């Protein structure tokens, strides 16, 4: 990213410090890649949660402490007694050998938890493992990834080193695998998050040193007994790399913004509202689950066919607004040439609906 762009992004963000990304927010970048608003806000490191609150459309995310407790206690249990349970599991899934078990805790370095120090140490230990092979498990290593010119620190639950010189990311999640099946949405989220770690690890060690197969460790059925499953994240990696490259090419998006645009959180709510409206968004209903700005965008997209869902938009002939679709349907709006087909379809639908509803 060039300095001018960086300058403009800083100006856009205003006085507040840039919001730090984490694996979850990096993973979230892959959702709705066509949204300029999201790309710009993320590249500038704007605190979207605060911004949404300031303009009167707070996000409704929140995590129950029960879920957090459960997640932590499951991870602690799996790693208890020097990884006893994990070793058995990974021996089966990855074919680790008994002699290979050794563990390096990277959660702190001699009581120091500063990110730079931890990262340096993680880097030393991980690169060292390739030559001396003295360790198998790396607990909470601190990795870095360049996201739109900013360094993001990432912390996978565990990285396992295989005797054939390949590293595997191990992700511990507390959602249950019941009769060999788990919630598809949760698995998908875990896969993309693991892909972020794989990418960070690959940037550090080289592509061929890190496996595209990650290991997901979850509780089995209704018990606390862990079960490990290998997941291929090649597809997620492609999406992720594409999205990160796109962030790096943010210049074109930023250039198109009006000069002097500012989203400084100290500005008045009105100004922020207006400034946000200058940046084009692409709202879809599933943004609600993924993006802090969703309720603002939804309000803005009221009357757009996309706000009703992608499939509804398509059924309505891909027309932009509801008013337009209904105008074409009842013939009050004259169709342009490229709308002719959609218009005739909409007219037929309107006629048939009217005749059926009247019956």
């Amino acid at each position, binding site marked *: 990213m060039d300095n001018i762009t960086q300058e403009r992004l800083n100006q856009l963000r205003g006085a507040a410090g840039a919001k730090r990304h984490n694996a979850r927010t990096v993973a979230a970048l892959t959702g709705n890649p066509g949204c300029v608003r999201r790309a710009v806000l993320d590249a500038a490191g704007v605190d979207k949660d605060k911004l949404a609150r300031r303009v009167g459309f707070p996000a*409704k995310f*929140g*995590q*129950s*402490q*029960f*879920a*957090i*407790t*459960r*997640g932590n206690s499951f991870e602690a249990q799996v790693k208890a007694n020097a990884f006893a349970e994990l070793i058995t599991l990974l021996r089966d899934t990855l074919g680790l050998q008994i002699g290979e078990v050794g563990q390096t805790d990277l959660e702190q370095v001699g009581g120091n938890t500063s990110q730079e120090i931890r990262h340096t140490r993680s880097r030393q230990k991980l690169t060292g493992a390739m030559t001396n092979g003295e360790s198998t498990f790396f607990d909470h290593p601190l990795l870095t990834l360049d996201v739109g010119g900013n360094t993001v620190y990432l912390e996978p639950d565990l990285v396992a080193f295989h005797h054939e010189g390949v590293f595997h990311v191990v992700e511990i999640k*507390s*959602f*249950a695998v*019941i*009769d*060999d099946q788990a919630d598809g949405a949760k698995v998908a989220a875990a896969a993309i998050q693991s892909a972020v770690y794989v990418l960070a690890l690959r940037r550090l060690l080289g592509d061929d040193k890190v496996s595209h197969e990650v290991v997901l460790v979850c*509780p*089995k*059925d*209704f*018990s*606390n*007994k862990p079960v490990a499953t290998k997941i291929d994240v090649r597809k997620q990696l492609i999406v992720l790399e594409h999205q990160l490259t796109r962030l790096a090419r943010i210049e074109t998006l930023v250039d198109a913004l009006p000069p002097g645009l500012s989203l400084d959180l100290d500005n008045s709510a009105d100004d922020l509202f207006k400034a946000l409206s200058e940046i084009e968004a692409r709202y879809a*209903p*599933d943004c*609600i689950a993924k993006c802090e700005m969703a309720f603002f965008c939804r309000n803005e997209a*009221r*009357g757009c*066919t996309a*706000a*009703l*869902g992608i*499939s*509804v938009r398509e*059924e*309505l002939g891909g027309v932009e607004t*509801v*008013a337009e*679709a*209904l105008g074409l*349907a009842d013939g009050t709006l004259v169709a342009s040439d490229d709308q002719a087909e959609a218009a005739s*379809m*909409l007219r*037929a*639908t*309107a*006629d*048939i*609906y009217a*005749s*059926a*509803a009247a*019956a």
Partner: protein
Amino acid sequence: MTAISSYARARAVVAGRAFSIATRRHVHLSDTPLVFVPLAMAGEASAPLAAMIGTQPDKPTLLLVPQPRNRDLRFGFAASLADIVLDYVHSCSQRVEISANEQVFLDAPQLLVPNAAGVGFVKLLGRSTRYRRTTGPYPVPPQVPLLGRWLTHLSERSEFAGSSALLAMTSALGMHWATGQSALEDANLAALLGWIDPPDGVTGPDAALAAEDPLIWPPAGPSTDPAFDNEILAPAIRAWTDAATDSPKRHRALNTLERALRGQLEPTWQLMWRAIDVLRRLPAADSVDTRWTTDRRDFSRYHQYVTDGGLPQARRDGAVAAARKLRNLEREQDLYDATRALEDPLVMANYRITGAAFQGTVVQVDRDRRVPGGKGRAVTRPLIVVSTTDPAHLAISTKVQAPTRSGQTGTIVQIDRQPDTTLVTLELSGGMTAAKVPPPGTVPEMDEHITYTSAYPESFRKVELPPPDQTPWTHGGPPKPYTPTNDDAQEVWE
């Protein structure tokens, strides 16, 4: 999503209220449905937290688990739930009729939950209780595994299109109305009902917006509002856990918990009954009763199976059972869609848009036409021409039927597309008696308004599979019957 429902959604946006996508009710509603609003603890696979259950709007029973992580308390919940559910199942098996040499109960259980996640909860709770042992280590009361089997039965039954044994209220409403919001937002029962039946003086979108505030409308479960978890539930559970057994402190803590959970459940409970009222206002479609009879028959068979000491359902279907089930599910879905269309012009409209059906006016009738039949005798095969403005994308020789004239099949002979109309020529057979001249009324008259569809129940071929015991060796041979193993029962539930 169909063209009709999408168009209705667009209309709903402008009008600020939901639009009908069905003119009749296609689900059965029992006179005494068992309404079940469950809540689960966040982060756990199947940890019931509380539930409101009952067959009468003014008499809900509140069940709660003061510490959902405690295994014994969970089983206590399961046992109390079992008492209610099994009692209800029993009440449905009191009156019986003999139909096709089979004993069929006149009633069947109908479980109504708020949303699809509620159906998932029923399924998981069934899975986590049906293998429990009543003896040996970790014994549970005898009704618990029985509850598991009934819940599993209901959730398996709910996969069949047209079954009303276990319904998610949001799906039942969504089948009949299109709102001005996305399908994703329709999963919120309060928002959905806000569009369909908003309070006086409130528009649909405003009612839906209010429904998103967890302080006004707590989530319909099984997930609870995270803020409620953190601010109210967690301290209340801690207070209960920390207090000594039977101490006044513990009683107070239990009261607090009960009040808090009742507050979370009550609004959804009311919504459920309001939704039932809204659905009851629609006249039931003719075949609803036929489909409910299938539910009753299925219930009667399973009841007999349980009484005879049958085994609990397998963890996973075997290959042969899965193939049969899939075949049945697909067939039921086709039949259900086609039957609904025959009874409801708004459902038929979907077929008219895709061109699988058309509606028009009879403009020409050759009623006495006779052609040589297969045995050399002449047979009556009237020709009619229907003029329609519908797309009518049908191939020559496709067979069609009119909803008003079941038993008579038309074969498309010619389709003549003119600038502002399409003329479809049909050759009719059946439904005209054996007389040489068709009796009056058996052939459509001139100027008659008529609909013909290529998707009617008899148009779907039944795919035959060999009986399970004759499964060929190429497909692994006859499957071994499922027997529960000790593993099934031994898993811990904590």
